[in-house]
């Protein structure tokens, strides 16, 4: 749809504003994999309280918005094997690389961090190759 990019831009500005708020008020990097991963493996014990509060907002508010304004289909593949494999790859990869789309992409690129830029280039290459192979070569997604 032609108006999709406008929603993309508005949503993007909201994401960037959220990251700005978390940085300027709490002094923290808004990286989704870092916040969750720190809670899971215990490396983020010192900031566990604000991490949990952050995740509560992240999970509850979109669910509430969907209840108020109607469904937002995720179109996630029904294959639980693919979903589990993808989840494992995302979990391993983001912890090895120390960040994902929000931490490296949004927070890293915006401060011209070399690591953020390099990570973003490589996860885009990985994602492009993944869709190429699994959709166009193997035809499983």
């Amino acid at each position, binding site marked *: 749809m032609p108006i999709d990019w*406008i*929603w*993309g831009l508005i*949503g*993007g*500005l*909201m*994401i*960037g504003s*959220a*990251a*700005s*708020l*978390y940085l*300027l008020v*709490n*002094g*923290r990097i*808004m990286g989704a994999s870092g916040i*969750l*991963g720190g809670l899971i493996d215990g490396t983020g014990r010192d900031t566990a*309280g604000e*991490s949990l*509060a952050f*995740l*509560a*907002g*992240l999970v*509850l508010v979109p*669910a509430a918005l969907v209840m108020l304004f109607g469904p937002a*289909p*995720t*179109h*996630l*593949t029904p294959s639980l094997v693919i979903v*589990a494999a*993808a*989840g*494992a*790859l*995302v*979990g*391993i*990869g983001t912890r*090895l*690389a120390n960040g994902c789309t929000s931490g490296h*992409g*949004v927070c890293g*690129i915006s*401060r011209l*961090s070399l*690591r953020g830029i390099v990570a973003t280039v*490589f*996860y885009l290459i*990985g994602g*492009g190759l*993944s*869709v190429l192979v*699994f*959709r166009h070569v193997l035809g499983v997604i």
Partner: protein
Amino acid sequence: MRGFFAFLAGSLFGAGLLTSGMTNTTKVQGWLDVFGAWDPTLAFVLGGAILPMAVAWRVAAQRPLSTLGSPFPAKPAPTVGHNLVIGSLVFGAGWGLAGLCPGPAMASLGFGGWGGAVFILAMGAGMIAAPRLRARIDRLATA
């Protein structure tokens, strides 16, 4: 106070992910589908997110501490190791395979059905396994 503002930031992040279409795996896979029906929406999402954050980093550079008193995170040394490259490629492979990255996976947990919960469980397992894999990769890299 820290918890309140963290909740606020998480809420705005989640609302933004929902608004932008990042929780729609079809759109994400369309963005990564450079050799098929390419969907440029995510370029606007990333661009729109980087704009306010670039301003925020400039504001932070002029302040000694954040509003709630903690220091700003230091800029990481510009060193690119094998874990950054390998990890990003692996993350990208999973991102393309299901069309979900960690933020949108959590944002859609409340309305995305059981598949989304399975994704989060597998992601958590991967996060727990990652340090052991990292040690193995480091040994191979220095061998």
